[in-house]
């Protein structure tokens, strides 16, 4: 796959059928709409942005913070220009309107899903799902990176996130909005955040998963003398 840096207005192709995200069609040509990396596939060309805000899309899983409790709705900051609305009926169990703040109060963090976004960008959220994965986050830590760099933290079909989880030995969830929830012992969370920062700084470069492996190897040696696998958890805690 060919990748190069493009700037808005750059000519990408003469075949308008290949126009993908981050591109636009003008005068029968496909041009870049964004400053980013051109991603050229066989049947499409898209531009991966290097910066930008999170724009909610249906079925995105995001990490939000309650900013306000109104009559029948929680208003949720989802790290986007648009606020999320969590209706009382989207809470996993039936609750009374008067009791809303007993379940979710201002400042609480939730792992939620975008249920629907309409044309005027009203964002409806939900906490109901089959797998019971959506919930209030009562432990762990949350860090944030640019939402455009979030895909690199997950990696191709989840390779990077799997590496991070198994190598560091912590639980992680990467929200589409660039917020990342990490749970584990303090040391492991620190290391995970360092790793995420490393990915953010190098998101535009290829071969990240391999370098991440080397990065973690070096870090673990420097920090604790040995690698985690040989170590008894209690010792370094």
């Amino acid at each position: 796959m060919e990748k190069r840096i493009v700037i808005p207005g750059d000519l990408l192709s003469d075949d308008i059928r290949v126009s993908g995200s981050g591109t636009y069609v003008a005068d029968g040509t496909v041009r870049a709409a964004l400053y980013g990396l051109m991603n050229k596939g066989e049947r499409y060309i898209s531009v991966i942005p290097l910066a930008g805000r999170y724009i909610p899309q249906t079925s995105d899983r995001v990490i939000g913070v309650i900013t306000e409790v109104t009559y029948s709705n929680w208003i949720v900051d989802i790290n986007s220009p648009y606020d999320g609305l969590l209706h009382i009926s989207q809470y996993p169990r039936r609750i009374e309107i008067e009791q809303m703040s007993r379940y979710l109060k201002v400042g609480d963090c939730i792992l939620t899903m975008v249920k629907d976004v309409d044309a005027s960008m009203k964002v409806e959220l939900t906490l109901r799902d089959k797998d019971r994965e959506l919930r209030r986050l009562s432990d762990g830590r949350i860090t944030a990176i640019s939402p455009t760099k979030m895909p690199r933290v997950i990696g191709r079909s989840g390779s990077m996130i799997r590496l991070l989880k198994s190598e560091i030995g912590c639980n992680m969830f990467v929200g589409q909005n660039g917020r990342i929830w990490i749970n584990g012992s303090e040391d492991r969370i620190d290391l995970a955040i360092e790793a995420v920062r490393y990915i953010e700084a190098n998101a535009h470069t290829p071969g990240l998963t391999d370098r991440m492996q080397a990065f973690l190897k070096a870090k673990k040696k420097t920090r604790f003398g040995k690698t985690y696998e040989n170590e008894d958890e209690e010792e370094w805690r």
Partner: protein
Amino acid sequence: MSEKPEHFIVDGKRLDGRRVDELRPIKIEIGTLGRADGSCYLEWGNNKVLAAVYGPRELHPRHRQKMTRSVVQFRYNMASFSVDERTRPGPSRRSIEISKVSREAFEPVIFTKFFPRTAIDVFVEILQAGAGTRTAGINAASLALADAGIPMRGLVSACAVGKVDGEIVLDLMKEEDNYGEADLPVAMTAGRQITLLQMDGHLTTEEFYRALELAKTGCDQIYELQRQALIEKYSKEYTTEIEEEGPAPAGEPEGDADE
């Protein structure tokens, strides 16, 4: 303030030694402000300008929100120390006008319909002024918008042309601006679609078209510089990264072992 020189062009050279179709030197830095979504610092001759872009973000007051598109807000501001004689801080008749025309220079190129109900804020601060600050501001803002990841049809490049000693010259400097016969700032996209065109002074129709042609060549040169700056920003990071790659893993375990 300097006196009016007797001749602006001597032996085909201008006061600062430039040819009539030559730009002043330009220096560009992208991503200078950490807290802004996109930013750019630009030096152009004696001009020093800083542009910052925030957004798309929530627009207040709410009644100014547009249900189908984003609102572009542009603020051009001169620092009180940017000119010889201290200017009164805050918006003036001149800066309000420049903010408006600069905003209109960007509105046609930004895909505002992607972000309904939001604002895209552009701030341009003139730290040092030396003729042609509005064009410098537009060039910097264009790069800051790209750096912020705002979708656009293309970059906007701007430059001024003018008339001194009866000749059409590119990119006026201070004296030429103050005592010249005409000043014509132009902004356009790489596809040569004009998004800003102002004129002060007098030009004949024939001179006007000649000036416009010269402005186009100037904008093309600036576009190339803008493009280089954007591409270099990431290629530089990439190459330094590769250099660090080699020695780092080997050297680190020793140095930080006692941490």
